[in-house]
């Protein structure tokens, strides 16, 4: 059985990769991809913790304890994260589209309208 640490290392690596992309890339779409990576890293961590830390029969959803049922709280969160990621992608793409229409570019170094 693969121990929890491996999952967490994968998750951390994925997170760092996403953060790196977010901080380094200039293209807004690429930044969006980095954010997706970060979200997936979080999802892996959720699932891993759900599997390893919470035993069968001790769980329930939202404090509702069902004897004998598997604890699925962490996995439920992942579902939410995926849904939110979808919504976020839709909204973010719309914003990027607007940025493009206003600035004729999606290079975040060029969009300096908020410079003080």
């Amino acid at each position, binding site marked *: 059985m693969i121990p929890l640490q491996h999952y967490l290392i994968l998750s951390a690596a994925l997170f760092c990769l996403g*953060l790196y992309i*977010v*901080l*380094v890339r*200039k293209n*807004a779409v690429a*930044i969006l991809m980095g954010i997706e990576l970060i979200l997936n890293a979080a999802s892996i961590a959720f699932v891993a913790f759900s599997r390893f830390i919470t035993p069968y029969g001790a769980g329930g959803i939202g404090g509702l304890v069902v004897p004998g049922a598997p604890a699925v709280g962490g996995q439920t969160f992942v579902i939410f994260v995926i849904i939110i990621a979808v919504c976020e992608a839709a909204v973010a793409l719309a914003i990027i589209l607007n940025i493009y229409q206003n600035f004729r570019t999606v290079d*975040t*170094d060029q*969009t*300096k*309208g*908020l*410079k*003080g």
Partner: protein
Amino acid sequence: MENYLWLIPVLPACGAAILLIIGRFLPKALVSILACGTIFTSFILSVITFIQLMGLPADHRVIHHVAYTWLQSGSFKAQAAFLLDPLSIVMLLVVTGVGFLIHVYSVGYMADDKRYSRYFGFLNLFVFAMLLLVSGDNLLMMFIGWEGVGLCSYLLIGFWFEKTANAVAGMKAFIVNRIGDFGFVLGVFLLFWSVGMIDFKGLKDAIHANPNLISSATATAIGILLFIGACGKSAQIPLYVWLPDAMAGPTPVSALIHAATMVTAGVYMIARMNFVYVLSPTAMMVVAIVGVGTALFAGTIGLFQKDIKKVLAYSTISQLGYMFLGVGVGAFAAGIFHLMTHAFFKALLFMGSGSVIHGTGGEQDIEKMGGLKKYMPVTFWTFFVGTLAIAGIPGLSGFFSKDEILWKAFSSTHGHWVLWLVGLIAAGCTSFYMFRLLFKTFFGKNYSELAHPVHEQEPSGIPVCCDDKNDAHNSRGHGGHGAHKGPAHESPWIMTVPLIILAVLSVIGGYVGIPAVIGGGNHIEHFMEPVFSAHQEAAVTHEGAPAEHHGPGHGTELLLMVVSVLVALAGISTAYYFYMVKPHLPRQMAEKFAIIYKLVFNKYYVDEIYQKVFVNNLLRLNNILAYKIDLGIIDWIVNITGLGAVKVSEGSGWTDLTFVDGAVNGTATTVLTGGKVARVPQTGKLKHYLTWAVAGAVVVIAGLWLLL
């Protein structure tokens, strides 16, 4: 019963308001009906009031009606209130009655005027102001009316303002009246200062209760100040100069305002204030002397005037002098009696002259008239009656009232035989110039045969209004004839009927005051007695009472009466001799006594003297004030002050710039610098913000790590 009393003055006011605001859009017939109707209703109401007043016991014939309290300030109280007693009801009847007749006459006289509704609006406004003057119960109300009639007089004298001379005549009247009003106002102030009230009843009661309330000197001052006002309004020496010029107005206006009603306001005022005047024999004497002096002075000027209206104007001044002589010797009732009869016959004479002017196409020079008797029979006969009345022929109204005044001037304690003699000479002048006017206008050479050359310029330099009259009447065209050349014609019935009514009044008007000595009852004096009571008995000999007083008796009175009739007849026969028997004699006489003739003909050069002494000096003073005082001193002070202010503000400005602005700018600089520093991290680049956010997250996590 007094509920409708306020309607008497208010009705003409409503008429005036309607006519002046929307009158120009109304048809002429409606304007005429409105103007005459309001006055007629007021007249009817006055008659009803008179009847009610007669129903009261003699001592209680007073109706006092307070409309509302107008002003109240401390002890000062002015009410919009009306006082109707025998004195004011006589005035009310005269004003509304004669006023109504003149309104009706005006319908004919002004028929073709382009400002028809405005004329009647002014006329109604005048009647309103005059009614306020005579029916107000305090001096303030009287003063409003006093100023109101002055305003209307000004408006109507300058009614044909297209001609500068008419406008100037209006201004002259207004300014001369202002001088009088100044005295009047001062008199009212002095009276209020010394008694503390201004309503007639209160004043009278206070003075009767305590005759020492006003010292004799104060009473003299009040009396003379008020009399100055009366001089202005009633055209007495030295303020009479405006009245002859006032003839520039339409003739019915001359009849109503400058003969029958407004100019008698001064006489009414003195009669109303009798309780003050009896306290001061000096003031009474001044009034009597000025009155009789004016009577003679104006009478002599009237002897040689050529303008038909000017003769009547000087005659009016002269007759007003009689009234002042009457009230000045304490014969208040006689003065008012003469006022009333004079209103009848002088309105008649003026309207007769208007009819003549109307019928001859605007002619006013009596030298160019003659033989009009044939063409204008109604005008002639009514004019003849008026002339007889003013000349003092026994049996007509003027005889009774004039003789009453002359008798009182002789017999009263305030009187003197010199006053009587001067009055008598003036009476002779009156009958002479009136019959001269009559003979020259209606007899002698035929009007139509006389050529009508260009009008002579009036020698005094005072502009005449004849030409303007022509303007007003030319439009008529006089039945296809030229305005000047056409034969004279009688005026329409709407003008002659008022003449006839006034002629009847001129005859019978005197019968209310026939003196006891020739078997009359002298009703008017008894009627007015309550108004002038309490002091009257001491001052004037009573006709009704047996001659137990000092002073001359009935024999003397009859003798004096005969003398005055003889003087009147002498005046008439002299006029007849000069102008009918030997028409060339006057010219020869004029050449023989050229200096005197010129002096009198030019009205003693009073206008010229006033021009030189007052107007020119006033203008000179004006120039000194304007260019020396104002430019030299006042402007200098103003400039110095201005310079000082500039210096002070310069200092103030420096302080402002240095300290106040410094503080403000310092604050701003500080904020600006802070802003520059704070702007550094705000690059606008998304990458930098994210870096800051990550760095922050790292710090937070590290901090939590270390703490936990």
